[in-house]
């Protein structure tokens, strides 16, 4: 599924400074029963966000009207555990286009890139600066500049982030891997014919 192009995102951000946020928290398993990709945003962080009677938990950040925006800032080791792409879908469907963390779990990071959510890994020190800026002013606008591979705070402080050239191109153009792979089917066939298994 192709997605919208990502170039420069300027937005307020939602802070979630908890470490080791696993994909079971991002979307609990009981909400994985759909056969289509829609509506997952409603259950993003379901058990942290709602009580058993479906009333919102007031102390959870997504229920705090002070915070909103297209950027989610998470603690270290964000997205660990289950490979469920539904976690990335839920993040996207809720309205986030970018997740910033000082460290990402591998599969979650790949899933985000495959669906058009930009995972931005910054140093622990810069992540702390982002959290502090949002805490001081929830209306802080953060710029995520993909062409320049930079995260920029209103104070002018910035940090570069890594992304390989291929994935960067995909995000800038809204392409996905299947577009690429289907264009090399003949090469794959020839390779497969020689493979021992």
């Amino acid at each position, binding site marked *: 599924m192709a997605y919208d192009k990502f170039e420069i995102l300027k937005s307020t951000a939602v802070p979630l400074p908890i470490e080791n946020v696993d994909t*079971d928290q991002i979307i609990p398993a009981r909400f994985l*029963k759909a056969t289509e990709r829609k509506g997952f945003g409603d259950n993003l962080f379901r058990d942290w966000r709602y009580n058993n009677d479906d009333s919102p938990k007031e102390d959870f950040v997504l229920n705090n009207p002070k915070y909103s925006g297209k950027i989610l800032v998470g603690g*270290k080791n964000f997205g660990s555990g289950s490979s469920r*792409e539904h976690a990335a879908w839920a993040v996207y469907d809720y309205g986030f286009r970018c997740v910033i963390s000082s*460290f990402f779990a*591998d*599969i979650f990071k790949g899933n985000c890139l495959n669906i058009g959510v930009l995972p931005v890994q910054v140093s622990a020190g810069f992540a702390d600066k982002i959290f502090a800026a949002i805490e001081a002013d929830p209306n802080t606008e953060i710029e995520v500049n993909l062409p320049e591979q930079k995260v920029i705070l209103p104070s002018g402080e910035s940090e570069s982030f890594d992304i390989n050239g*291929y994935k960067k191109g995909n995000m800038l153009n809204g392409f996905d891997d299947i577009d*690429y792979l289907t264009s090399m089917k003949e090469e*794959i066939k020839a390779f497969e014919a020689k493979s021992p298994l």
Partner: protein
Amino acid sequence: MSKTLFDKVWDSHVVRHVEDGPDVLLIDRHMVHEVTSPVAFLGIKNRGIGVMYPNKTFATADHNTPTINQHLPVQDPLSANQLAALEKNAKEHGISHWGLGHEKNGIVHVVGPEYGITQPGATIVCGDSHTSTHGAFGAIAFGIGTSEVEMVLATQCIMQPKPKKMRINVKGDLNFGVTPKDVALYIISRLTTSGATGYFVEYAGEVFENMTMEGRMTVCNLSIEMGARGGMIAPDEKTFEYIKGREHTPKGADWDKAMEYWKTLKTDPDATFDKEITFEASDIEPMITYGTNPGMGLGISKSIPTASEVQGGASTYAKSLNYMNFNEGDNMIGKPIDFVFIGSCTNGRIEDFRAFTNIVKGRKKADNVTAWLVPGSHKVEAAIKEEGLLDILTEAGFELREPGCSACLAMNDDKVPAGKYAVSTSNRNFEGRQGPGSRTLLASPLVAAAAAVTGKVTDPRELMK
């Protein structure tokens, strides 16, 4: 040039290296289940393309299947819908499908090896992070997202940057009562849940050489819990003995040819790793977890560490202990428990049930414990009956359920209620993993059995004297 086991398998599957990007990797075996595949099938349909190599994909239903009354229609309409979608998609694309009720049905990572789909030197993927299990055979096996499931269906390839390489050595002999699960939980507790992120692990040393194939599967299964994409062990005589004669393994001259290749699958003596870690087997005792990620584990005789003794932030640690309703400094031994779950792709094989049965034999299930015994497959279920384990279990007050993922992720009705404690042989103790509000203590089948008959956390070695 000297190569590691991982290099040999990875490099031989690279169709193309993308400049400043990932490798295009050919996938030999693709397993699909009902939960992470429907959107991928929908994707290829919307693109108007088919499945490129249907004979390389295998479908089984496991994640949300009931574990009682499997002969009756599935009650939950959403689960029934997913199961029906898998059956329809498999049929439409000519993929073999071992659905609910099929004699070969079971957990994807249990049935793959049982029927010889899992082979040394293969690349194996599935939309499930515990695909790393298959690394026990010297395969490169790892979990993928649904977009990648779609890629494999459409082109038999995925695009992945080559991970870094780590070797974990465990030297010496294991202590009495220490199982492969304990070895894995020990390693994860030392590395943390992110300690191997970005790496592919090779397990080496006497402990793994001496381990059975099922034990190796348990260890490789848990690789993802320290952040690794996967883990693998070089194939040896034990591996070849295990796979020989299984339905999907090569036969006759093909077997001989395969063996020639498989025997080359070991790390060259002077090959190097990006990171190498060594542990001593004698330092490991039966393990149990006390927190809300698999890295929060300790030797069963130890007490819960203080925040200053662990890596990571104090507030995250406090949140975790608060969820478990445990305190820093608490002893684990003697903690009352409510549920015991033996099963899952981690510990749902016949050796796990043998270990469990050994301890409960001649004893009775504690009255305060609800026990769910869920075999990983019909084949495991049949072995439990044939070996006479079921009689012993029944005598001790236990019932056997039907195969599936069950309470490991509680997508079906096997949910641990809020606030209750479960000693579980599965792989994750995340908040709510076994049901909203549930509290999970991960452990080996021996520790689970000791808890099941005493109603509290008990050192299994006390019951094995």
